[in-house]
């Protein structure tokens, strides 16, 4: 009886452990990362608004500002697949899949850093 109890306890612990692991924040490959334009906590909350504001300034006034999407991708592309998309550990995709927020930036914008996308195009030719 005692053995059964112990086994049940171990099993319940295991199950709760996996559940806990699932609800923890996604493990992201942040590429080069580090402090860039603002601290990560601020960026986590406000990057959407910052990018939205920046895009209007860039397209309509021609000012490549500090919140340029190219700059984000250049630093945060994974060192494994050279992209911010692809797997659920990639910088943009990882969080957006976790939060179930559709991301449509990369239907038009390049998800790879400048040098990588250049070589890819050369190879495609």
């Amino acid at each position, binding site marked *: 009886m005692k053995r059964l109890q112990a086994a049940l306890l171990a099993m319940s612990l295991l199950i709760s452990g996996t559940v806990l692991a699932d609800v923890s924040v996604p493990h992201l490959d942040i590429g080069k990362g580090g402090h860039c334009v603002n601290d990560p906590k601020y960026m986590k909350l406000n990057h959407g608004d910052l990018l939205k504001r920046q*895009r*209007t*300034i860039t*397209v*309509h*006034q*021609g*000012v*490549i*500002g*500090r919140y340029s999407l*190219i700059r984000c*991708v250049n630093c945060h592309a994974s060192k494994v697949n050279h992209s911010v998309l692809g797997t659920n550990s990639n910088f943009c995709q990882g969080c957006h899949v976790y939060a179930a927020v559709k991301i449509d930036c990369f*239907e*038009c*914008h*390049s998800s*790879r*850093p*400048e040098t990588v*996308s250049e070589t*890819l*195009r050369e190879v*495609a030719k």
Partner: protein
Amino acid sequence: MSGDLNRREFLRSSAMLAGLAVAPGVLLYDLAHGKDQPASSSVRWGMLIDTNQCEEGCDDCVKACNKENGLPGGTGPADEQWIRKVELKNIKTGKITSLPMMCQHCAEPPCVDVCPTGASFKRADGIVLVDRHLCIGCRYCMMACPYKARSFVHEPLHDQKPEVPRGKGTVESCTLCVQRIDRGENTTACAEACSKAGHKAILFGNLNDPDSEVSKRIREVASTRIRADLGLDPGLHYEGL
């Protein structure tokens, strides 16, 4: 009376002090973040295309544009073409004229007039662009353009150039290589390719600067705008038409 003077002096000196305090901060911020000046209406980008120099059968400008902007390079009705080579034949004389045709960057662009979302717009420096964040793909602008200069992206795209975002469901056209202009360069891919091929048929520059090469040439030679009768004041001038 003396009180009024004192007040005036006080305001003047405090304004000067405020200026001294604010100016270095603004300057330092700009230096630190590499902030560019926004596009200014003191500049108007335009071109002079010399059709006498444009060689029949040469499409170096088209190839250069495709490479610069990451376009696939097809010439079918559903393919994106920002610049085309057009050949005109005068039926009476038989003279063939070859010229590149693209967005004419009108001062009074009909594409901007008809756009229901404000996606089609003219920048302060005269470049007519599509803000694809706002474009809903209705294609009114394509119907309004008398130059047939705009294309619609029908298929999903991959591996766009980082500086030239393009995507399915939006309209696009020649941007006068806006990414180069914003970097401070003073040439477009087509003009560069044309000089490289030795034709020098495309002259790009600031039409508002009387000392720019393009302004000087427009003053010297007879040039015309295509469909000048529409009164759209295009930024592209053609010589030898």
